């Protein structure tokens, strides 16, 4: 027991004295929250950038368009505007004839499609065609419904993944490369204590990660977990246990840090890109959504969002807890079979 205590203390010291750990656990989440939060949480919507073909016929509707702060109008020849469109500087090109409005845009681009609808409605209004229904907007900026509220649980999940795989795993690989695991093996140290020290040490780091993300989110954006904080922390712990076990599997054999980085990138990158960390998975094709349902990161992100944004209780998210726990057990069992000390 004393040995386990000293080893856990060592895990903490290893973390505290490693400058890159400070960056990954403290600085990276804060920079991400502040950066992405401010970029996507701007109180005013940017105007649509519209290119107007200079060969367009004179039309009073164009005056209306230019006078509307919903639009930023750029005049130019068709060739020059096409170049601007390719560069993403404008969302569509408009050319007016005496009876038609021609739009050139990419229908797969949501912003371009919205710009096309907005321009069209504006032209109709300018031509005196009143809509059947008068639109009444309710603008939402309440806590829990903003992009930053969506982002914070995702960032915490991503932080858990990266510190588990890049922190714990890299340390084990370095210990093997430096013959330290071999050195431990010729002492009466219990191998289980070594594994447990990594998992408990990881939970100590997790406590810091959760504090940093939640406190900075609360201080800067007024972020609050809508559900139970205890349930939120419980799922974070489950996630950390699952990913620390996965790190033990990934680091079970190799003593080559570059090879390990390759293995981890192959695991993390698809999960990070398709797991809905930064953006909703509903933007993806359906088949990709189905595949990403099975990623451990998706399970963690979805369960944290469910609790933080929708106030879900443990009962609502128990199936996710079961899946994360099963993964922890499977990965830990795999690690104990595969793990090589030297």
């Amino acid at each position, binding site marked *: 027991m*004393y040995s386990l205590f000293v080893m856990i203390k060592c895990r903490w010291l290893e973390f505290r004295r490693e400058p890159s750990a400070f960056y990954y656990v403290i600085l990276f989440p804060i920079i991400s929250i502040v950066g992405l939060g401010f970029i996507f949480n701007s109180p005013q919507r940017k105007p649509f950038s519209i290119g107007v073909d200079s060969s367009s016929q004179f039309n009073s509707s164009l005056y209306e368009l230019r006078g509307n702060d919903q639009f930023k109008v750029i005049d130019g020849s068709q060739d020059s505007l096409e170049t601007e469109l390719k560069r993403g500087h404008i969302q569509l090109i408009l050319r007016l004839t005496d009876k038609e409005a021609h739009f050139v845009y990419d229908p797969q681009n949501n912003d371009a499609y919205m710009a096309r609808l907005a321009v069209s409605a504006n032209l109709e209004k300018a031509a005196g065609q009143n809509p059947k229904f008068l639109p009444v907007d309710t603008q939402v900026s309440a806590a829990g419904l903003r992009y930053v509220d969506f982002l914070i649980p995702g960032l915490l999940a991503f932080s858990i993944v990266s510190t588990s795989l890049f922190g714990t795993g890299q340390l084990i690989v370095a210990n093997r490369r430096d*013959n*330290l695991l071999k*050195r*431990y093996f*010729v*002492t*009466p140290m219990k191998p289980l204590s070594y594994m447990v020290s990594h998992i408990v040490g990881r939970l100590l780091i997790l406590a810091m990660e959760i504090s940093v993300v939640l406190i900075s989110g609360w201080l800067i954006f007024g972020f609050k977990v809508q559900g139970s904080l205890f349930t939120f922390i419980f799922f974070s712990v489950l996630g950390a246990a699952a990913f620390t076990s996965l790190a033990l599997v990934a680091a079970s054999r190799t003593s080559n840090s570059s090879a390990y980085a390759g293995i981890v990138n192959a695991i993390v990158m698809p999960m990070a890109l398709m797991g809905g960390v930064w953006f909703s998975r509903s933007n993806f094709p359906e088949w990709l959504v189905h595949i990403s349902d099975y990623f451990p990161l998706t399970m963690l992100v979805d369960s944290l969002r469910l609790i933080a944004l929708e106030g879900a209780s443990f009962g609502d998210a128990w199936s996710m807890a079961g899946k994360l726990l099963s993964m922890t057990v499977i990965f830990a069992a795999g690690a104990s079979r595969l793990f090589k000390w030297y």
Partner: protein
Amino acid sequence: MTYLIEVKNLSKSFRSFEAVKDLSLHVEQGECLAILGPNGAGKTTTFEMLEGLLKPDSGEILLFGKTWDKDRSEILSRIGVQLQETSLYKRFTVRETLELFGSFYKQRKPIKELLELVDLSDKMDVELRKLSGGQKQRVYIAAALINDPELIFLDEPTTGLDPLARRGVWNIINNLKKEGVGILLSTHHMEEAEYLASRIVILDSGKIIAQGTSKELIEKFSGGEKVTVRHGTLEDVFLNLTGKELANV
């Protein structure tokens, strides 16, 4: 009499390569047995089998009269090991490193006493990355002595050290001998074996090609160079037996 180490007919192969062939040796209490040999002679394989890191293909290993299979934890609590090319965590202080290794054992030597033995008392709270090569090596030896072992394995403990640092390690080993600790030492340095070892075993291609005290080996194998100018040395013995220049070892 129970030897600290007793090895009989030990063999180990890696696929078709025979690393160790029919090796037998023993180490008594308070004795330093040095194993000399060129690269690839089988020194590290022999050490790793004796330390319980490798399983031999055949032969018998007894440490304190006990076997690795039946008495692993007892053997581990009575030996100390300094591996070749180990790197401890460089941001731990000397004290933290020794506390960590001490925590693995029920019986442990006080850290202060240990640091006096390896002459590092003033470095107790210094991080390992701030120590010189010789000082680090002394920390590794201190870590191997934390459980007050009866037998210690030192695998090339002075490789890469300057003459002064090497002398420091020699002093530690001599003090251990005086305390009755058995030592199995692997080295490339002839003068080190000559100075420290009670007996010497010369390995080549996995086989013992000569063994005895340095005096016996010099008398027997130095090639009759006992001329007026220069007596034969252990280095002459090594060259005559293995046919390899020291620079290539």
